Structures are given as C-alpha cells and as structure tokens.
C-alpha cells in the first residue's frame, strides 16, 4: 500500500521549546494512532500535516504534494481539533453549513452535506439546537461532523475521545472504524492507551517530540509485560495481605505505606497475582478498600521505553 502522508525529517520548535524533532514516517490508509503523553508533540505534528504550522526543517507531503500553503490539499483533508472550536450561538446545522460554504459549495449542497454528516454522527434531532446547549459527547460528535462533511479522504482527529463517557466513546470508535472501512486514512491522537487499543493496532509512540516506537500495539504490550507491574492495595489488613502474598514467586517487591494503610506489590505476572488475590479476598476478615495500578498509564510506558 502506498503512503498517503509522508513526513521527512520534520522538526519544529517554539523559541527554545522543542515541538517535534526529526520525525520521518509514512502513513498509509487505515487507522494510525499517535500515542504520547501531553506535550509529546502530537498536536504539533498534526498542525504541520494540516498545514497550520510550517516545519522549521523538513517537509510533509500528502498525496505526493507539499502541504504548506497548498489550499487544494485541504479539500481532501478533514481536521478535528482537540479543543472546542465553535460559534456557541449557532445551531449545529448553521455551524456545519457555515464551514462547508468555505469550500465554495452552493447553499443547497452545503445543506445536503451538513444534514448527511449530522445523520452520520446521530445528531440530526439536535441539528436546530444551539451548540451551547450540547453535551460533551454531542460537541465531540459535531466536531467530527465538521471533519467529514466535505467527504475528505484523510481524517486527522486530535484526541477525539477525550472527555467522553463510555457510551460516547463507543459511538465515536464505531464511527471512526466506519471511516476506515470506507477506505479513508485516519490519523488519531490520544494519550490513553486503552482508547487506542480499541481503535487500531497500528500505533506511533511519540515522546519529547521524537518517535519512540512504531508498529503493532501487541509488540508494545509484550514490552510492557516484561516490565514489573505495580499494584497498590488499600486495606485495613494490609500487613496481613503482604504476609499472605510475599511467598509467591511472582511477587518481586513489597513496599508499605503505613500512613495510607496500603501496600504496593511489584510483579511480573499480573494475571497470576490477581488470581491469587481473588482467592484471598474470599477469605472472611480480609477487606480491600481500593486496588490501583500506579504505573498503568502511558507515562509509565514511556518511562519504561526510554529506560528511566
């Protein structure tokens, strides 16, 4: 499959602050996820490929054409920014028709396309309500509607799942997968690993403005499994719990937090650990108040990958 987006040695800095550094990659049709913690450089990369920022060094080409100052490319590209970018006083239909008219469509075509996009994101019933009355999920969907209304071939979605409830997330994930099935190229950014897993297996890990890893998400997961997991359990009987779990071979380390009545375990085998914990919980007299994984987040993944 040939690359739709080609980035070559892209670097961009803001004064002394580095946005991205020497990013070279090809993105093919399908869903590609840009994964990285806040400030990693995802938004900078997205702004460069949507032509809003010029790279200080390097070039990005879409369909073989340079992006910067190339208005023709923007007809084939849809961008969904992370932030709410609305005219609150307008209703959903007016908002979409207004943006569609910037492409030069006549009024009837704008209306047709806006209605079709609203139907796709299941907002047809709310199309005449002012955007200020929309819920978080509806706002996210209207943003996606403006991204797809002109039938772009490439969709750039910046954190499309942030702030959504589980139902809202499922809706958006289904929608994004439909775009993929329709043959579009979708680039999604996120800083939440499980969200990305639900969307695609093709990920690009960005950290400190550089590409840290690229490829199948299962490979990344394997890397994680070879890294000890931390499990923090809060319980009035935290010492007793530690005594019961300490003999297990997969428990590598135990740290007490007496002031919080908690104990932190480190283990290579999370599944075996939790199986044993389930057995223990069935014993009367052992109360667990809270179980958390302090390192089950993207920052921990990156810390591990960069060897911190």
């Amino acid at each position, binding site marked *: 499959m040939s690359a739709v987006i080609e980035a070559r040695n892209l670097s961009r800095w803001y004064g002394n602050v580095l946005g991205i550094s020497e990013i070279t990659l090809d993105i093919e049709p399908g869903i590609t996820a840009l994964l990285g913690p*806040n400030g990693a450089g995802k938004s900078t990369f997205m702004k460069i490929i949507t032509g*809003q920022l010029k790279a200080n060094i390097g070039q990005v080409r879409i369909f073989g054409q340079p992006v910067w100052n190339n208005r023709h490319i923007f007809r084939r590209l849809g961008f969904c920014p992370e*932030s709410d970018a*609305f005219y*609150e006083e307008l209703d959903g239909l007016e908002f979409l028709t207004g943006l569609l008219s*910037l*492409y030069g*469509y006549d009024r009837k075509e704008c209306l047709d396309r806006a209605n*079709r996009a609203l139907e796709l994101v299941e907002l047809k019933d709310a199309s005449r309500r002012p955007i200020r009355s929309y819920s978080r999920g509806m706002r996210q969907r209207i943003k996606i509607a403006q991204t797809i209304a002109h039938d772009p071939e490439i969709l750039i979605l910046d954190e499309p799942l942030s702030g959504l409830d589980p139902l809202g997330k499922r809706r958006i994930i289904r929608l994004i997968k439909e775009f993929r*099935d329709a043959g579009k190229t979708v680039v999604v950014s996120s800083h939440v690993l499980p969200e990305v897993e639900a969307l695609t297996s093709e990920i690009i890990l960005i950290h400190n403005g550089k590409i840290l890893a690229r490829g199948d998400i299962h490979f990344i997961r394997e890397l994680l499994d070879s890294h000890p997991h931390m499990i923090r359990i809060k319980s009035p009987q935290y010492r007793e719990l530690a005594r019961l779990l300490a003999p297990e071979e997969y428990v590598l380390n135990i740290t007490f937090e007496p002031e919080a009545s908690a104990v932190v375990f480190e283990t290579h085998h999370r599944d075996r650990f939790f199986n044993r914990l389930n057995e223990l919980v069935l014993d009367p007299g052992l109360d667990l108040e809270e179980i958390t994984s302090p390192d089950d987040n993207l920052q921990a993944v990156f810390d591990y990958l960069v060897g911190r």
Partner: protein
Amino acid sequence: MAEVREKGYHHWEGQLQDKGRAFWPITRTGIKLAFQRKRFKFLFALSMMPAITFAVGVYISERLEDFKFMAQGAERTLQVNPGFFRTYLSLDFIFFMILLLMALGGAGLIADDFRHKAIQLYFARPLTRLDYLLGKAGVVMFFVGLLTLVPALILFLLKLLFSGSFKFFLDYPWLPLSIVIYSAFLMIFFTCYVLLASSVSKNRNYVIALIFAVYYFSEIARGIFYVIFRSPYSILLSIPGNLQQVAAAVFQVKPVQAVPWYLSFLVLSVFCLLSIFFLRRKLRGVEVIR
C-alpha cells in the same frame, strides 16, 4: 476503488465558487451573529436616529417658509451644503454609535476565535489568512457603511428629491464622490481599529473596554497636550480629531484646527498599516504548546 465509493464517498458534480469569494461566508456569519443579539438590534435602530434627524433637516431646508415658526435663526444650520454632510459623517454621536455597535458585534470577531481556538477550523480549510481577515473586515465595513455611506447617499438623494431639481448636484458635482471617499476611509479606519482590538485579547469584555478606552483616551491626551503646549497640533493625538480634520479636507470646508489635513491622514494611515502588520503577525502564530 469502486468499493470505496459505494461505502461512503459522495461525489459532487457541481461548480465550486471561485476563490475570490472565500471571505464571504465569514462576513455573512459575522453579520448574522451580530443581528442575533437583541441589544444589537436595539442599538442599530438607535444609531439611525441622526440619519432620520438629518433627513428631516433636509426636508425642512426645502420648506423653510412653511417651518418659519420653528426654524427662526436656524437658517444657517439648515443649509444643506458639503458642510452639512461633513457634519453628519463626523458627528460625535455617529462615532460613538459605531464604537457601541462594534463593541457588541465586532469585539468578538477575532477574540472569540482565539478563545475557542476556532482559527484552526478556518485554516484547515481552503482559506488563506487574507481571506480570513477580509471576511472579518467585511463585518465591520458592513456596519460602518450602514451608518455612514448609506445614510449620507440617501440624504444626498433626498436633497435632490425634495428640491425637485438637479441644481444641488450641479453646484456640488463632486459631493457624492466625497461621501464615498470619506465613508470608505471611515470604514477602513474603524475596520483596522476594531480588528486590531479584537486580536489583542481572547476576552471579549477586555476588547470592548479597549475599543472605548483607546478612542477616548486619545481625546483626553489631546486636551492635556493642548493645555500644556497650546498647540493646535495636539489634535494629531486624537482619533476623532484626526477624523474630523480629514473630513474637512474631503468636503472642502474649514478644518477644526489650522493643521494640515494630510498630517491627520498620515497619522490614521500609519495606524491602519500598523494594525494590518500586527494582525498578520497574530494570525501567523496559531500555535498551541501543551
């Protein structure tokens, strides 16, 4: 590829409008949003009061005999000549209403886009920064034009209509052009002024305060400098003062102060150029660092 088309692509065979009109949807939306505000409609109606009063004045000037009982001693004031149009177009109340309308309908033009980060929605579309600025400028120009150019031309036509002859036109054939030139100057100046203010902050209220503060502070500064130096050139510090000086030159009447008009024109033009320069810089920096 055939499969892809069946699944979702919608192919349109229509003709896209040429790129020269790319700014128009932005202008249209801006005007529409302004009129959606209830207070704006009321103020807009109120801003038409001077035009109506002047129209009555034009009518009375042609019927002085009939209105002698109430127009005694006001014959000079009711004389319709280039000075009459200069007075209308440089009336303090007109300037005040322009500021007031722009505070409501223009302050958020760019500020709101910055606040909501909507600029990225514009520039992810086939739209240049110039298109964007022209679109926003169109909103201010539209309203300033409705308060200046349109009423002034209507007053001119009313004068011809009420007098029943073309004598007035033959006496001052250049007057329609003066009206157009000065109104266009006002439109350009206030557009630069309002857009500059709107681009300074993301907070619309702050922009509104700035629009009024700079305008009236310039007038206060003029007063202070005049008291200290007793120089007529202090008028160059005042926005309304400079506008009135230019108006006097365009309508060929005696200026407020004995200061060459081109100096006032220069001051306002430099202000406009600096505004454009600043606006372009502001729009270039659409960057978010998180």
